[in-house]
């Protein structure tokens, strides 16, 4: 709306027909595309009209009335040749009969087109809002899924066969074409200070690729979400080693956990 603020004062001057030069050209250009400003212009003209309407004075001389009617009659009589002014193509029939004091449908309604433009604009805005709303909803869904995995307050349940102690377990969810990786671990043994686990993507060929450094929480759980990965790497397996806190660029043996694709 700041653009309209800029025009607000010029609109007032324009309404009084006193805006000149470049300012005027700029405003006219803007008005051609802005129904809101055109509406404001009409209102400003109305405000100005109040000034005009407030003028009081003597009535016009009596002769003026007849003079007018005579001139009108003459014009009607001369009508095929009376086309001197730059006129719109009004049909040569009697308008005055149709122009009652109530609204007449035969009149060119600029205001109606203004209203239509406004309505069309409003419709467009509504459509965009609906689209934005939809996208927001989808985003919300995605966020919900991510939250279920990564939120610290999420409760985790590891199911193991009865009568066996819980084993360290990790699951890697890898979307190759987007290089998206979500890794979830359970029952990881605690580490000495200054040590961390590191996840590795084992490609079909070449050296293992670092895929995130993590430390388990008090319950032995950990997550790694979307670490930076080279695009489109094919993963033969994922593996975990123990490294210094800062992580390493090549794995330090032994491998403590590993898994191939299901």
């Amino acid at each position, binding site marked *: 709306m700041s653009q309209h603020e800029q025009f607000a004062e010029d609109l007032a001057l324009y309404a009084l027909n006193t805006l000149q030069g470049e300012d005027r050209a700029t405003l006219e250009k803007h008005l051609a595309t802005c129904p809101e400003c055109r509406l404001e212009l009409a209102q400003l003209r109305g405000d100005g009209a109040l000034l005009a309407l407030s003028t009081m004075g003597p009535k016009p001389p009596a002769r*003026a009335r007849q003079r007018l009617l005579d001139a*009108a009659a003459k014009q009607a009589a001369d009508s095929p040749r009376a086309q001197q*002014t730059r006129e719109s193509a009004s049909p040569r029939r009697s308008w005055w009969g149709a122009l009652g004091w109530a609204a007449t449908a035969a009149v060119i309604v600029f205001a109606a087109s203004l209203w239509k433009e406004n309505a069309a604009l409003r419709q467009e805005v509504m459509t965009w809002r609906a689209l934005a709303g939809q996208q927001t909803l989808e985003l919300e869904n995605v966020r919900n899924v991510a939250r279920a995995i990564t939120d610290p307050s999420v409760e985790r349940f590891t199911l193991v066969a009865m009568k066996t102690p819980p084993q360290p377990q990790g699951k890697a969810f890898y979307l190759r074409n987007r290089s998206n990786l979500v890794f979830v671990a359970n029952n990881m043994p605690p580490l000495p200070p200054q040590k961390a686990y590191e996840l590795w993507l084992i490609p079909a060929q070449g050296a293992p690729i670092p895929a995130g450094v993590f430390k388990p929480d008090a319950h032995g759980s950990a997550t790694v979400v979307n670490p930076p990965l080279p695009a489109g790497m094919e993963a033969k397996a994922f593996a975990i080693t123990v490294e210094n806190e800062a992580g390493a660029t090549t794995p330090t043996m032994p491998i403590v956990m590993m898994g191939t694709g299901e």
Partner: protein
Amino acid sequence: MKSGDQSALAELYDRYSSVVYAVALRVLGDTGAAEDILQEVFLQLWRNPGAFDSARGSLGAWLAVITRNRAIDSLRRRKPETDIEDVIVSVAPDLAAAADRSRAAEKVRGVLGSMPTAQRSALEMAYFEGMSHSEIATKTGEPLGTIKTRIRAGLMSLRKAFAVAGGSSG
């Protein structure tokens, strides 16, 4: 030529001629010139009645605006700048009846009276003398921006005063 036409024109004249004449006279200060404007405005309306959209705003207000513009053009010896068709005026009260008009006139005078003097004079210079904001600035020695602001503020005060009265089409 149909007699019905003439009587419609006559009726319009009877209703609105005093508004038109008063505005023209205020601007031009000359009865002969004011009368010419009076003729011109009604003849033009009669030639081109499609120019006025009665669904929005009042004929009286529209005529007042057209008259003022024509009179200013004449005063400043300019060619008419705006096509009569292009002028859309949004004002609710019709003020065709003299009583309504004198009440409105009083109200406007009240608003003008309570305006800061500088604001009122800028507004009147712009409205009744057709002075541009740069001309007003030169005349008053005030900055351009100040004059622009005053003119707009003046119009807004009028709008507010009449909006409160109710019936503003907004």
